[in-house]
């Protein structure tokens, strides 16, 4: 009972400090000289309502791009991470290639990769090269995020203590068996939160595909904003992106908690 008394006081203090902080913030913002103008151009309810249906429809393209890209990234990044962790001098060229790939695609801004592929590849005028801008946008995102996610996987693989691999090998498992049955299951479990982090980044970067001309949520909001010179559609697009991100974050929390619960439940 004493603990709950302390908890209640904590809640009171937290509540109070929250109210004071946000009241001060609200007073500060609403009394800025430009507030009426900002309110009219960014938080205009009528604009919001009018632009939301079209932006929501365009947002489906973001979701599609995200889902397709994520499926490829998860697989390709794992392959890249495994290639980079291959032992022995024979595999040096593959390791070097993996490093070069990760360095290059993590170094080049995503928007440049998208522009180079989206406008460059179709310019080859080869009949079998797809012209679809969405296709090239997805390819660019997969290339860039594979580099990021492979690093996450690799960090996970390296976080598994080498005694695990040594023990497995000493029991006669091959390198591949030790990797797939001992190291990877532990590694992947550990990197789920950082993986999610990258996927939230990917979700947001789907907006960059709009650079090629595909009308996704951000591009649609730009169209609406440019038609009226009112920026409320941007806020509408932001709301959609956040609405997609938050459930994903909670889902991962749940996944991590379930994993922990299952491991503990085994001992109950």
């Amino acid at each position, binding site marked *: 009972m*004493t*603990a709950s*008394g*302390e908890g*209640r*006081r904590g809640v*009171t203090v937290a509540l*109070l400090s929250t*109210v*004071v902080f946000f*009241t*001060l913030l609200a*007073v500060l913002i*609403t*009394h800025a*000289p*430009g*507030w*009426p*103008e*900002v309110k*009219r*151009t960014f938080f205009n309810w009528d604009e919001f309502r009018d632009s939301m249906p079209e932006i929501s429809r365009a947002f489906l393209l973001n979701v599609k791009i995200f889902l397709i890209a994520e499926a490829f990234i998860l697989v390709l990044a794992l392959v890249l991470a495994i290639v980079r962790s291959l032992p022995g001098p024979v595999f040096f060229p593959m390791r070097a290639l993996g490093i070069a790939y990760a360095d290059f695609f993590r170094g080049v801004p995503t928007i440049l990769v998208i522009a180079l592929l989206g*406008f460059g590849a*179709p*310019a080859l*005028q080869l009949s079998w090269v797809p*012209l*679809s*801008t969405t296709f090239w946008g997805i390819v660019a995102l997969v290339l860039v995020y594979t580099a990021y996610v492979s690093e996450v996987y690799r960090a996970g693989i390296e976080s598994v*203590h080498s*005694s*695990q691999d040594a*023990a497995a090998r000493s*029991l*006669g*498992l091959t390198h591949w*068996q030790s990797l797939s*049955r*001992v190291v990877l299951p532990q590694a992947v479990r550990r990197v789920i939160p950082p993986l999610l982090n990258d996927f939230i980044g990917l979700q947001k970067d789907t907006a960059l595909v709009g*650079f*090629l*001309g*595909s*009308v996704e949520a951000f*591009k649609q909001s*730009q*169209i609406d*904003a*440019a*038609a*009226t*010179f*009112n*920026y409320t559609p941007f806020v509408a697009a932001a709301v959609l992106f956040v609405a997609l991100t938050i459930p994903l974050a909670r889902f991962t929390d749940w996944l991590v908690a379930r994993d922990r619960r299952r*491991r*503990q439940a*085994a*001992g*109950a």
Partner: protein
Amino acid sequence: MSIPPPVLVFSLPGTTDRHGAPQQPILREVPSRKYRTRRPFIRSALREDLIRVRCRDIVAHNVHGAKYRRVRVGLVRRAPAILLIVLLSILAAGCGGSSNKASDTTGTAAAASCDKGSLNLVNAGQLTVGTDNPAFPPWFGGAEKAPWKVSNPYSGQGYESAVAYAVASKLGFTKAEVKWIVVPFNTAFAPGAKKFDFDINQISYKPARANAVDFSESYYDVNQALVVVKGTPIASATSIAMLKPYKFGAQLGTTSYDYIINNIKPDKKTSVFDTNDAAVASLKNKQIDGLVVDLPTAFYISAVQVPNGKILGQFPTVGTTEHFGVVFEKGNSLVSCVNDALSKLRADGTLKSLEAKWLQADAPVLK
């Protein structure tokens, strides 16, 4: 027949037993047909851990109990905080009422004197004019000069450059007193203070846009036109109805885009580009079949930017005539002065002669 690989079970390295002594990683080989036997092992290991954790919790619980006796926090102790909240909310409500007045003063400014000295300028004694970079013909001309690409607004060549200098001279500025700055098309209408006195960048007037910025009167009445690549299927279309099955592109925020959506109503989704350059790249790649731009720009794109480019035709006006206006920060008193200058330039035939000089003649009208 191959022997199934053994399944490994072990504790995490570095764990300790219940007396705190380090425990060696335990490895045990279990034949995979007895897969289940690993569960009791894990169970016993984890139960120990749980007991330890639970004991520590209980200890901690008691310690806290002794330290912080449960005390009723009365209203008296909370009084200062409650008072603070009440005061703040009164403050917020009181100030909230007065903030409405501020917005009233930002209405349209009264006509001010148009003497050069009394103009409302960003930089005193200097007319700061914005446009996008690259500055494309036929709106801008002259040899490319850094930071400007393709042409140079300072040259006074090209229709918009010429109009800007004509307006400047009507307002009493010399050519040297006109300064050009780069303002990307889509930021010309961002809310708040502007870095330019006015922006001249083929921006079409729309009533909704006039809520965010002020427009001058028309300096050019514009028609939209369609650019295609010679030899592609769309190049043989002769009417707007025949354009339906093709894919179109336009620059973001242009009336060209509106024209596609509202009047061509194509079957395929229209591509929208941040800049006309990206749209031109897409047309060259045949990612879009046709590009809709204003007629003077169409002449430049088809002649210079797209190999085998062709103006299929210009579109008939639907509704009111579209026109380009110079853009100002909302409420800028400069608007009426520039409007005076434009109407004088229109009356004395300057605009017409500049148009004849810089903008090309007609294209066939698509019905």
